[in-house]
């Protein structure tokens, strides 16, 4: 008898493996098959004829290149911002705890459950041309025009994404910080180490895996973000997902939409692979 016989289910292994079939079929029909059809539609045009020049034209178009550039810029900046904000808050909540710190951590955590476009909508009231900030500035300095306009640029998207995605960094970091040996920190401060030195030499190394895992998840989510960009609706800020939406729904140019979708999916899967490797390597 072969070695396979040592598996717990023994001879029945072949039958037992069939149990996974129903959810697998659902996944294949509802997810993999549509994905394959996107790939198919990327090279066929509306008349169902292979049309590679059209696909190339889409990839070379200014709109696509701009969207790709915007997506990368926004994702990287938002991820960096989320890491900075998440790390700062995690450090304070974990190591300079204040009354109600755990409640605050939970509150921030609920942001994970809220729709992302909520941030954009709120920003409209806060930083929009008729919003709180501009209103205050106009009133204080007797200006005739609203002075703050960042909301309708890439910055608006980046800041909204930082608000929405920093909880995704905060959560694993808080988990990692709870494992840091408090005795070590106390010993270091007794030896006269300054706080920033303790942070750099003891806390950050311990938090690195969580930061990398949280950061790469952030990168993936920001590359895929749609709601925030759609709600801001600024002409100059088009990302890949938004361009796909525009091409498919506004222009009914399905081939172009599918070509861009292929690029976006490939980018996301690449990031997903990185995230899995990082998460596994670092055990986070």
């Amino acid at each position, binding site marked *: 008898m072969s070695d396979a*016989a040592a598996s717990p289910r023994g001879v029945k292994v072949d039958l037992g493996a069939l149990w996974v079939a129903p959810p697998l079929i659902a996944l294949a029909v509802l997810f993999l098959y549509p994905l394959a059809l996107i790939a198919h539609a990327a090279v066929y045009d509306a008349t169902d004829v292979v049309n590679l020049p059209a696909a190339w034209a889409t990839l070379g178009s200014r709109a696509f290149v701009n969207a790709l550039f915007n997506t990368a810029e926004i994702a990287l900046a938002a991820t960096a911002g989320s890491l900075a904000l998440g790390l700062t808050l995690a450090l304070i909540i974990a190591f300079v705890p204040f009354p109600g710190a755990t409640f605050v951590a939970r509150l921030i955590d609920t942001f994970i459950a809220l729709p992302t476009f909520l941030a954009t909508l709120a920003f409209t009231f806060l930083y929009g041309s008729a919003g709180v900030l501009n209103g205050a500035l106009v009133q204080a300095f007797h200006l005739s025009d609203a002075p703050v306009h960042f909301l309708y640029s890439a910055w608006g998207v980046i800041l909204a994404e930082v608000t929405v995605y920093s909880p995704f960094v905060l959560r694993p970091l808080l988990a990692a910080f709870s494992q840091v040996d408090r005795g070590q920190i106390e010993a270091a401060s007794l030896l006269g180490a300054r706080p920033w030195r303790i942070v750099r030499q003891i806390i950050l190394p311990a938090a690195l895996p969580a930061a990398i895992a949280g950061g790469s998840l952030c990168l993936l989510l920001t590359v895929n973000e749609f709601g925030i960009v759609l709600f801001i609706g600024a002409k100059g800020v088009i990302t890949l997902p938004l361009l796909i939406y525009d091409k498919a729904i506004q222009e009914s140019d399905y081939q172009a939409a599918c070509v861009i979708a292929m690029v976006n999916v490939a980018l996301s899967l690449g990031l997903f692979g990185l995230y899995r490797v990082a998460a596994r390597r670092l055990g986070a």
Partner: protein
Amino acid sequence: MTLAAFVDEAATVSGAAELRGAASTVAFDRVSVAYRGAVVLKPLTLEVAAGEILAMIGPSGSGKTTALRAVAGFVRPAGGRIRIGGADVTDLPPYARGLAMVVQNYALFPHMRVFDNVAFGLHARHAPKALIEERVAHALEVVGMSQYARRLPRELSGGQQQRVAIARALAVRPKVLLLDEPLSALDAQIRRSMVEEIARLHAELPDLTILYVTHDQSEALTLADRIAILRDGALSAVGRTGDLYRRPPNRFSAEFLGRANLLPVVVESAADGSGLVAVRAGEERLVVAGADEPAGAARLLCVRPQNLTLAPDAAHANRIAGVLREIHWQGELTHLVAEVGGALLRVVATRLPTIPARGERLEMFFSPADASLIAEDADV
């Protein structure tokens, strides 16, 4: 098990005896196990008699758990058959084998109260409610946990959880009880009392066959009728507990089961049928129990530390002289280490007339019946 079987057995006498299943043998017939090509249990042939406690001991990774899991049906042997009560169960799923098991961390179902934990196996076999009540009550009584029926596992101490795990196993009246290091999660003191408790339990349930896996040789020596010693996935020795301890068949079992002094000797004259053999260790001529030893053969003389005494008397006919190298007083016992012709011998003495000093010459005595001869390469 059928419903009729429950009703049937329910009508038997009360008390611990009620928890008895029909006694069963367990037989390994050339059972081997491999994980992804790596053989971790070499063809094992071993029989556990009905109503006996067989302890399976061996160092970590020697395949004890694997052998036990093969009986339970969690690993499928790569070869060989397993029989329980004479019936071939190799192809039966675990739940159809009529066994019960207690594992190292007890695995009490955390979401069930003690009562429901103990009732689990009976529920699973669709026993009638009245019978379940009765059986669970008895099982809890046997392990002294009746007052705790309404508790959750997390509200119990380690020792109490252990008792509940045993009660849960006994409640189904298993043909065979499998125990995998059931005491190793307990601290030393509770462990000792639990060993005694299991011994008492077995005295009350003489028909229960128990396969007891442990790497603690003192548990095995206390509880087992017979001991099987595994090494690197192979059976190194098996025998009645006392025999195996007194006359280990090879160096590995001698050293694994308690402490042993192994002194290289040469057989002087072939066995003469008296059951005694004369051997030479350096200058000394010694007489030990043994048979069929050819003259001139190199052997290891095995004698346990507590069988060496420092005072000569009629029974202790053999004398070895050495030099005292170490002496440790440990309250009840004194441990001495003496050097004899380059080899070190350990002596455990309960009482010493005079305390010898290091470097002093020491004479040690032992009885021929307390020593045995082991072939030098028996375990290779």
